[in-house]
């Protein structure tokens, strides 16, 4: 399909999804350094939050060294053109936290629900609109709902006031046809002025191909992250995607070489582990498991002696979804007991 001249809005995730890959340990200086470099490269939206979004600081999701407010304030004051965005998952984050993120300079928000639970977001989407924010309804683990179901959920989010509805491949499980079917179903029911976005994970190496497929089906916003810094095998690597767009004549408005430099010179040296498709992250993509579960499963594997891949497959079988990180430890303990590696407490 000829996509020449199409305008696409890029949204960088390395300071939010990338927090997962850094066990939430990104310093204020690093945040500012990355964000100013992305801003200078012309990236229009930069997400800055704890990996689990507003309200994310918790035993469940880990504690970052700074509050979301500190991160957002530090970054927002330095932006020349980029807008700072945040993630808000109802049930974890609240409207109070959205208000304070806005007060610190956030102007865009992904309000995220599991792909079948859009009706837990009406308050938050309406409140974001009231604040005048660029508002996205973000349907996570979208492979777990069929195209018609995604269309119905997206329509709800549009009804609550979302400017944009995203198909979010949290498990990096989808193939291009899966993406096209869901984006196409949304395009068929949403108002023409409602935008559609795609957020990919690279667990099967499909981040770029899936994002292009999304554009072919009508998406105009694409999430990615410089050098792919994100949960699992990372997000769609933004500089690679920008290069493909340039070859295809898709207009992203970013400076490709500057973006490549951010990835190579700033992000890669920050990585604690090489974010790539390896045995465990491939398992996420293959079994359809939430990408953030990767490092949690590796820790549970170390503690209880059950291989991370076995834990991930079991979590997939039990249909655990984003936010159920506590069930990783629980599942690992149950498996360890069944394998004679752990004694039960009598109750």
């Amino acid at each position: 399909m000829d996509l020449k001249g199409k305008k696409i809005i890029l949204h960088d995730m390395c300071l939010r999804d990338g927090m997962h890959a850094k066990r939430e340990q990104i310093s204020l200086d690093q945040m500012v350094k990355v964000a100013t470099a992305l801003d200078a490269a012309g990236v229009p939206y930069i997400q800055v939050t704890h990996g689990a979004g507003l309200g994310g600081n918790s035993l469940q999701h880990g504690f970052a060294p700074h509050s979301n407010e500190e991160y957002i304030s530090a970054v927002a004051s330095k932006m020349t053109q980029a807008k700072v965005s945040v993630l808000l998952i109802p049930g974890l984050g609240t409207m109070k936290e959205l208000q304070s993120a806005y007060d610190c300079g956030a102007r865009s928000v992904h309000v995220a629900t599991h792909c079948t639970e859009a009706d837990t977001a009406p308050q938050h989407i309406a409140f974001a609109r009231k604040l005048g924010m660029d508002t996205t309804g973000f349907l996570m683990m979208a492979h777990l709902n069929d195209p018609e179901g995604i269309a119905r959920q997206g329509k709800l989010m549009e009804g609550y006031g979302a400017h944009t509805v995203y198909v979010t491949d949290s498990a990096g499980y989808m193939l291009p046809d899966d993406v096209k079917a869901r984006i196409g179903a949304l395009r068929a029911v949403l108002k023409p002025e409602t935008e559609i976005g795609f957020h990919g994970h690279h667990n099967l190496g499909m981040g770029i191909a899936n994002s292009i497929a999304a554009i072919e089906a009508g998406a105009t916003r694409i999430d990615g992250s410089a050098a792919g810094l994100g949960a699992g095998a990372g997000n769609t690597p933004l500089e690679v995607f920008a290069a493909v767009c340039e070859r295809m004549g898709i207009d992203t408005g970013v400076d490709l070489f500057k973006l490549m430099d951010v990835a190579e010179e700033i992000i890669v040296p920050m990585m604690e582990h090489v974010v790539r498709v390896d045995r465990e992250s491939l398992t996420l993509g293959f079994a359809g498991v939430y990408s953030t579960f990767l490092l949690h499963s590796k820790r549970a594997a170390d503690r209880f002696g059950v291989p991370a891949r076995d834990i991930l497959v079991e979590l997939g079988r039990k249909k655990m979804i984003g936010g159920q990180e506590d069930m990783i430890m629980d599942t690992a303990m149950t498996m360890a007991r069944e394998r004679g590696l752990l004694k039960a407490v009598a109750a």
Partner: protein
Amino acid sequence: MKKIRCALIGSGNIGTDLIYKIQRSPVLEPVWMVGIDPASEGLARAREMGLKTTADGVDGLLPHVLEDNIQIAFDATSAYVHAENSRKLNALGVMMIDLTPAAIGPLCVPPVNLRQHADKVEMNVNMISCAGQATIPIVNAVSRTQGVGYAEIVASLSSKSVGPGTRANLDEFTYTTSGAIEKVGGARKGKALAIINPAEPPMIMRNTISCLTDEAPDEARITESILQMIKEVQKYVPGYRLVNGPIYDGNKVQVFMEVAGLGDYLPRYAGNLDIMTAAATRTAEMFAEEILKGSIRLTAVA
């Protein structure tokens, strides 16, 4: 034996499940069910089960309160109308058990503080939230042993068991439960997380409770206290079960629980709804036992 006569306000799933639990009680008798829709299934079912019904809201019940000797009412409507319902019924000397998030009365978790509320003859007690009922006993079991600076709970609920009211007001659920972890659980700071999982077949309610103790945890004493508390909850929620833990990691204590319901009217996986109706019934029973013994007397609130 004489029983205390009760009214149920709200003819939805919770109200219907309450009929079953109250009918089994040796000290409670369900007499009235109050709805707002004459065609509602809940009212029809209540009539079949032998209750008197009105579709005119609480005002339809008021003229019958004295002649039918209604002494306890359960409100399973919404936070928006609860205050008015409570005012009208309290004025007639009816004690209110609030299953809405209104929380105008003190928060009640039976094994933690029901005794105190009954002794004080509180005329309105609030049942917090399903996640609160399922997790606060455990937080309290730790905090009664050692100081807890922070407690965090994660409630996983099956999608089918979460009604439109909770969905549209998820922030209220978060605030109410977080506050109760502090006020009733005894942690200095509380945080509540809710996850709604659509898996089929529906998953049974799960709760993970994590506490950070001020000093290094005394593992044996804390484990003993938790196991003791679980037994207390099991007296009114038999499906309250320890799945894993307690496990200790530095000052962190973690407990992984499951709540299966009794399957009265609500399906077994909806342990979250069952623990609310069971806790509310337990609360009413304690008041009823005291009233029947003559140790407390309900009086009209002017």
